[in-house]
Structure formats: C-alpha cells, structure tokens
C-alpha cells in the first residue's frame, strides 16, 4: 500500500522523468534522424547544389556567349575597317593611275605635235633647198645665155658690147627688184 502511494506521488511529480519515455524518445529521435540523414537532407542538399550549378552554368554560358559575340563584333569591325581601307587604297590608286594616264596622253600629244612640226619644217627646208638648186641652175642658164649673147655681138663693137653688158645688168637689176617685190612668184617662175 505504502509503495503504491510513493509510486503515485512520483507519477504525479512532472519533474521526474520516466525511463521508458527517455528510451522511447531516444529511439524515435534516432530513427527519425537516420531517415532524415538518409532520405531527406541529401535531397535538399542536392536540390541546392543543382540549383547553384544551374545558375552558375547559366551565368558562365552567358559569359561565353557574350565573349563570342564580342569577338565576332570585333572581327566584323576589323573586316569593315579593312574593307574601307582597301577601298580608299583602290580609289587612291585609280586616281594616281588616271593622273598618270592623263600625263602620258598629254606627253604623247606633245610628242605628236612636235613630230608634226618637225615634219613641216623638214618639208619646208627641202622645198627651199629645191628652190635654191633650181634657181642656181636657172642663174647658170641665164649666165650662159648672157655669155652667148655677149660673145655673139662683142666682136663687132666695143660700144655694143658695153650696151649689152649694161642691158644685162639692168635686166639683172630688174630681175632683182621684181624678185624683192614678189620673191615667191619670182622664185617659182625663175
């Protein structure tokens, strides 16, 4: 009877733990801990890790793409600059070539003009030479004719001879003056 009372009093004291409850608490907590370690925590950690990886992967992929795009842009800009440079170079060359062509043509034309001028001079010279030659021949003929006349009449009279010479000289003077007045005509006619 007295032990029952003591036990009842112990039961009623909430500060005195029951061994069975401690044991059950330990066992149940242990089982729950095991299950969480085994099945719950790894899954949550995996989700975290996967998410971190996905985000980091996305970021790094974006960075790679960005770098690629930058590189391509730089390349295109370089190509564009090259093309512009090339175009400028070609234009410059064309201009130079054009100028050169013009200069060449001009020089050629000058040469041609020179040549034509030279030709003209040569022709004139040749004609003059021809005229001189023919004049000389004519003067010779005239001289011969004069000599013939002098010789034909001289034997008769000194006076006559003097007259012939005077006449010849006068003829010659006439010839000279008329030639001076119209040299081209006389030249051609003599």
């Amino acid at each position, binding site marked *: 009877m007295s032990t029952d009372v003591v036990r009842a009093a112990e039961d009623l004291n909430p500060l005195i733990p029951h061994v069975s409850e401690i044991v059950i608490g*330990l066992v149940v907590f242990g089982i729950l801990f095991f299950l969480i370690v085994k099945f719950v925590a790894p899954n949550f950690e995996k989700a975290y890790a996967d998410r971190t990886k996905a985000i980091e992967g996305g970021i790094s992929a974006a960075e790679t793409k960005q770098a690629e795009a930058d590189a391509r842009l730089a390349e295109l800009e370089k190509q564009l600059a090259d093309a512009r440079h090339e175009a400028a170079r070609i234009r410059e060359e064309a201009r130079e070539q054009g100028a050169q062509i013009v200069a060449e043509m001009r020089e050629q034309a000058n040469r041609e003009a020179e040549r034509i001028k030279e030709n003209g001079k040569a022709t004139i010279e040749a004609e003059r030479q021809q005229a001189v030659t023919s004049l000389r021949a004519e003067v010779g003929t005239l001289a011969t004719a004069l000599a013939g006349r002098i010789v034909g009449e001289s034997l008769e009279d000194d006076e006559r001879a003097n007259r012939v010479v005077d006449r010849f000289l006068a003829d010659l003077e006439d010839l000279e003056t008329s030639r001076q007045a119209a040299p081209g005509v006389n030249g051609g006619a003599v």
Partner: protein
Amino acid sequence: MTLAGAAIRASESPPQPGPADFNLPPIFEVAGFGITKPMVLVVLSAVIAFGVLYTMSRRAAVVPGRLQFAGEAMYGFVRNGIARENIGAPDYHRYVPYLFTIFVFVLVNNYYGMIPFFQFPTMSRIGYPLALALIAWVVYNVAGIARHGLLGYLRLQTLPPGLPAWIVPIIVPLEFLSNILLRPLTLTLRLFATMFAGHLLLILFALGGEYLLLHSDNALAIPGGILSFVMFIAISFLELLIMFLQAYVFTLLTAMYIGLALADEH
C-alpha cells in the same frame, strides 16, 4: 482523454487542473508494458515528420514545386539561419541533418498540443526533452573533444582567457558547472516547462470556463466563464507562437553549444 477525465470531475466540484492531467493512464498494454498516449504520439510524430519531409524532398527539382519550396524554406531556415550562423563553415554541414531533425521533431510534438484529437504536447512529459538534451550533450561534448582533445576542450570550456590568477579557482568550477553539467538540464527544463505550463493554462481556462458557465451558481459565473473562454482563445494563439519558438530555441541553443565547442576561443 485529459479533458474528458477532468470534465467528469468538473461536474461535481470546481476543476483543479494539475500534474495529474499530464499523467495519462496507458491506452493499451504490450507484453505487460503500458503504452500511453504520449508514447503513441512520439512514434507518430516521427512518421508524420518523415512522411511530410520525404514527400517534400523526394523530387529534388532545380525548379521546386510548392511542397518542395515549403520544405526547402524550413530546411534552409535551420541550415542557413541556425547551423551556419552558429557553427560556421565548413563544420556546419555535418550538423545540419541533426539540427533539422531536432527542429522538426520538437515542432511536430509541440504542435500536437494544438491539433484536435492529439491535443497533448508530448514535450510536456519531461522524459522526451530530456532524451533530446542528452543527445545534444553527447554531440557537443564529443565534437569539442574530437576537435581539441579532452584536456584542451575542458580548458577552452572552463577557462576564459585573460583572467587574473586569483579568480581562476572560482571561475573554473562555475564554468564547468554551467557549460558541461547544467546545459542539458536547462535545455530540458526550458522546453518541458513552457509546454507543461502552456498546456496547463489551456486546461485551466477550458475547464474553468465550462464549469463557470454550466455548473456554478455564482452571480459572476457567466461573464467569468465568457472571459475564461476568451482567455482560452488568446492563450491558444500565444501557444502557437511559443510552440514554434521553443522548437527554434532548442535547435538554436544546440547549434550554439556545438559552435562554442568547436570554436578555438570564445
């Protein structure tokens, strides 16, 4: 069952809620061993906690669904808010599952006090918080000894640096008492007492209100009974907060003890 038993007494005399209301008779016996309601509840809490958590975490998707999101919020709260804050990287990883188990286990068992038909906070039976506190005691001491060696650990725990020599003989026993011996007791008592007192208050206002409204002849009985039920509702909301808070505090203190045991100086 508590309420029913007390209600029978209430029909004859004013109710006197007390420790007896926490001392439930066995529901059934297994091989001569009486199984009580808290025992069933504790086992059930593990089933509930694991069932819910497993459902939440099973898919482990990168883009979480609602359930997984809720589970991750809870897990992240313990992992980042408690473990990492108090233990610090990289050690905290090892203790996250343990701390998380404490948190959900205490949380479910506390909220039993508010859920109809369960209506009994298991942690108001001192054996259960004591079991948890004993585990915590073993865990943080073993962690400290494994890190610093037995003597190094005792020195770190009992001898704060930079003390004058004459005070050391006084401080060392005090620190030993508070850091090594009393921590599991304070852990136990804090959780047990709040759950016990909270549940007692709820019983008091529920049974008191019922008695005043139905069985008392006093002139002030009716307003008193109404006030009692109003108080019952107010205390219920307070309890909802306290039940979460106690689960948080128990987990937080365990994490702090582990962190202090692992720290080089404090």
